[in-house]
């Protein structure tokens, strides 16, 4: 009987988390449109509701009424599975993200022992969805976009993993709650100076690339590949890809906060939960800012950055933190 209650609790939590992701994705899309407008001296959405706030609802309702088109030559089964994989992989990331602390309870779905490893593993599942989605469309642009996207995402998974390991070394644990608690004295970004900071920078760059955002948005490059692996997707399937992508963006930012910026910790009067969201949305803002500031990389520059710069830097970082831990403690 106990098991059934737990399953019910898990299902309820899942619905809550999914709703949270959906709403925060809407907020991020709105923020992205407003901020990009602001940076380009435009106005952005403003007709639906005050300051265009209801635009999100209007968009959702519109998308729900769009027809799901499957190209004649596509592989129907794979074509419809791919967006589900991307969305669910993003959802699974959220299991290990601790949002804050109320009294003595940490607000987290489950504090899994191998938390950060779990996070990296689930994030790596996204590649499969994107690759097969691009292939199943049977469109040259889509396939090219899917292959490029996969090459890019796997390249940046290595630096991402290396900076996660820096954190694991400093905290001596893989559990996300343990990592936040190990930063009580000093955030990891400031520990083992300058290596903690470097690890943070590597993580941010790699997570921007993992979420296929500018300046790493070659797979979608609308001017060359007409949105790459997404070009044959319409209506709700397309939105599932978007949901996965923005969900991953928020998840990666939240993970960066958890691993480097002390998670929910912060000065007293502001509650921990609020601190967490302030920090995370600050990072999301930085990513949006970068998107509307920099042009796109070329694919050779992108791969060079990963393999010839971030990977060596990541390895040196690990050795540096190791030496620091041995010599200075």
């Amino acid at each position, binding site marked *: 009987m106990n098991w059934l209650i737990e399953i019910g609790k898990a299902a309820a939590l899942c619905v809550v988390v999914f709703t949270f992701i959906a709403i925060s994705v809407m907020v991020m899309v709105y923020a992205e449109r407003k901020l990009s407008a602001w940076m380009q001296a435009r106005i952005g959405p403003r007709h639906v509701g005050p300051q265009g706030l209801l635009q999100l609802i209007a968009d959702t309702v519109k998308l729900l009424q769009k027809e799901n088109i499957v190209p004649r030559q596509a592989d129907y089964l794979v074509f419809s599975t791919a967006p589900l994989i991307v969305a669910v992989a993003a959802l699974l990331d959220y299991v290990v993200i601790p949002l804050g602390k109320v009294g003595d309870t940490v607000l987290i779905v489950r504090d899994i022992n*191998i938390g950060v490893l779990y996070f990296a593993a689930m994030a790596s599942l996204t*590649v499969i969805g994107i690759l*097969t989605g691009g292939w199943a469309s049977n469109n040259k642009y889509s396939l090219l976009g899917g292959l490029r996207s996969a090459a890019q995402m796997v390249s940046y998974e290595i630096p991402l993993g290396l900076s996660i390991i820096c954190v694991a070394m400093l905290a001596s644990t893989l559990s996300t709650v343990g990592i936040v608690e190990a930063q009580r004295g000093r955030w990891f970004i400031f520990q083992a100076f300058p290596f903690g900071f470097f690890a943070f920078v590597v993580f941010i760059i790699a997570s921007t690339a993992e979420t296929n955002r500018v300046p790493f948005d070659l797979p979608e490059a609308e001017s060359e590949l007409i949105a790459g692996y997404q070009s044959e997707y319409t209506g709700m399937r397309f939105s599932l890809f978007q949901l996965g992508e923005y969900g991953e963006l928020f998840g990666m930012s939240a993970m960066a906060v958890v691993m480097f910026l002390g998670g929910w910790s912060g000065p007293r009067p502001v509650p921990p939960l609020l601190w967490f969201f302030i920090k995370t949305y600050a990072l999301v803002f930085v990513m949006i800012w970068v998107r509307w500031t920099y042009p796109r990389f070329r694919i050779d520059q992108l791969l060079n950055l990963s393999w010839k710069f971030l990977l060596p830097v990541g390895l040196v970082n690990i050795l540096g933190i190791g030496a620091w831990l041995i010599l200075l403690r």
Partner: protein
Amino acid sequence: MGKLAVFIILSCVTLIPAVIVVTSRNMVRAALSLVPTFLGVTGLYVTLDAEFVAGIQVLIYAGAITVLILFVIMLTEGGTGLRVRQMNAQTKLGALVAFGMAVVLIAFTTATRWPVKAGTMPRYNAAAVGNAFLTSYALVFEVTSLVLLVSLIGAIIIARREE
């Protein structure tokens, strides 16, 4: 009861997609079916208290090896291979051998009296694995890096030979 139900579900998640892997005529679908199989095996590892291995299973098998296989299918097959015969002439013989092997193996495992011991696995799995790797299995650890180096060099040489 709960454990048995979980075990049966995980076995189905592992074995049914595995059937698709070995029989599907569409190579991409076969490769995609590897993912639930690997995730089912991950679940089995979890029920066996091997949390760390489970994480690695997802990261390496589902996240890396499947992607590599999909790459190669997309680059060689030119897509599905639907128009080509996928099974060779010895399908019936192969099925017979595999079935016979299954019968023999299961008969053997049920007949043997395994020296089962009761006990609990270490609580912090990753730490236990790390300790074992760096102390008793240090040589394995270092040799692994050599194996990785050799396979990296070998694979690059083979794949790039004609350039």
